[in-house]
């Protein structure tokens, strides 16, 4: 079913399908991996220390089961995050910003530039090491309508920020 509408037949409505969505920087996956390695490292460290110092027979017997479960969980987590990472894409159009993400549930959010309240560029210590930036785009809507695009190359984030800011300010 299509929306046919006499008033706007002369125009063609720009379609989501035509948009070329750009993946975020590959370096951002390194950040995800580092973060996860730290978390799982702590878990494995706890497990190994317990193995050394706890003499409880039940624990000792089941140690490898626990280890295996954690390892499999870790593997699954890494693969899903990789797929989810691959799905993180964005696009800047003349009138709006588009961001797609998700693994099991995928979503595409579009914020018209005319609805942007303000833009924030933030960089964590780790992101700085990889020359990456996070762009937060705030609207007046609920929290669900704000966009957070992580893992943009620093220069590109700045360009986007400048472009959007000039458009947002030019509106007033």
């Amino acid at each position, binding site marked *: 079913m299509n929306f046919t509408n006499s008033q706007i037949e002369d125009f063609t409505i720009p379609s989501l*399908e035509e948009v070329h969505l750009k993946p975020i920087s590959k370096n951002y996956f390194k950040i995800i991996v580092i973060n996860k390695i730290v978390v799982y490292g702590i878990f494995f460290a706890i497990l190994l220390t317990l193995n050394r110092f706890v003499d409880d027979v039940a624990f000792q017997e089941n140690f490898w089961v626990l280890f295996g479960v954690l390892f499999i969980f870790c593997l699954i987590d890494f693969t899903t995050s990789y797929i989810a990472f691959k799905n993180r894409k964005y696009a800047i159009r003349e009138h709006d910003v588009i961001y797609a993400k998700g693994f099991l549930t995928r979503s595409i959010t579009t914020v018209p530039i005319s609805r942007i309240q303000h833009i924030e560029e933030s960089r964590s210590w780790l992101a700085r090491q990889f020359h990456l930036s996070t762009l937060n785009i705030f609207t007046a809507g609920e929290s669900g309508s704000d966009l957070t695009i992580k893992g943009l190359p620093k220069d590109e984030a700045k360009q986007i920020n400048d472009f959007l800011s000039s458009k947002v300010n030019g509106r007033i």
Partner: protein
Amino acid sequence: MEEFDFSQPSRQSSKGIIVIFAVNAVKWLRALFPALVALGFGLFRKNSFLTWSPWMIALIIFALLLLMLGIAVLKYLNFKFHVADDDFHLDTGIIEKDKTIIPKSKIQNVYIQQNFLQQIINVVSLKIESAGDKKSEIEINALSRPMALQLKKALFDRKSATIETNDSFQEEAEANVFFKISIKRLFLEGLLHNHLKSFVIIVSFAFGIYYEFKSIIEDLQINENLDQLTTYEDGLAQVLYLNLLLGFIVLIISILYSVVRIVIVNFNLEVIENNKTIEISKGLLNKVSLTLTPDKIQNVIVKTNALKRRLNLHSLYVKQAMTNEKQSKNFGIIALEDVHIQHLLDKLLQNYHTSDEKRKPSTYYKRIMAFYSLVFLVLINVIAIIVFDYNALFVNLFLVPFMALSVHYRYKKAYYNITEPFLTVGSGFIDTKKEIINIHKLQAVKLVQNIFQKRRGVASVIVYTASKSVTIPYVDEKEAKSIYDFLLFKVESEGKNWM
């Protein structure tokens, strides 16, 4: 009418001392409640607390009251406001002086309220809400009604600081009372309310109380009596009977609760139609009056249910941008007739129209709801069997039909409809809900699709406004995408402001 000069710093009515005192007393009481309960128990058991005698405690309470009165007087003396140029000025603080200045242009809402105490001493409180921080709200506790009305006018009069009473009051003369609730319809509305919510509230409240005072109840040995009851006459029928009786009692209480609550909140509900705005005033213990401005309105929700529709009872709820949570609950008008709804929609949304064509979500929506209900049922059953025993399975007698009806009606009532420039989305189970937004008020659009939906080729569209999000669930993927594109196209090509 007496005129007030707001250009000079002035205090509120001296009755404000009483209001400030009461507000503080309630605040302290709330904070000290656990301590007071402990103290009360101490007194009850040993006739003394720590080593203090009752006289000593009375003296301490008296001293505390005196201290609070002193603070109230000082607060009152140090609370001054005035309107100068295009700003509202407020000086507060006993030791640490605060000076608040709000530009008139930043004032979002002005409410006039009157709680029970204020009704007795015949003053009103005026709340000023400004854009920005959620906490930026000023309350003047005690003003006479005419003074509050004039201050409100002065705050919305953007041209000059002095009040041009003539102009503003002329406008008021044009205002007419558009709708006034009758006692009969008010009670009907309360009686036909969705009691399920009250039921849940009452049950959780009862559980809360029970756990809070478990030890006391055990002291009173109610449990033993109950045990005796159940051991004498055992059997499934007995348990069932007891449970049914209990359920019935709770049901009666929850019906009473919703009727009383609705009557108190909506007592004397009046809708006043001004030139551009709609004013609502209502309340028995706490009288509120608020203004709806079409520019600020983001979502409009019309609600009714099968019984109410038969009696021509409809409710209209409005979500305004830049309104705090607590106030936004008051933005509802109940017991309206069909014609009233039409008129209000026309006024608030500027020529609202919709076609009769109701586009339905994909039938997959129904199947997935049924599937979720099934999962929920199985879960409940497993828990019931583990916690209680097989006797608990009788809940299925109620749960299964309830779930089946829920799926049936939720699908039946789900529809959407786009007639420029409005998006209408219908939903509901017991209630029939119709959410309307003006397309140019949207802030963002989201297309959501999980892997199961992807396989079936369906997706949901979520439309965000500044107040609320509306979901068009489970439509055909192609259609979802064209809705998505269309909504964005409308917003971006028209360039209209959302507020």
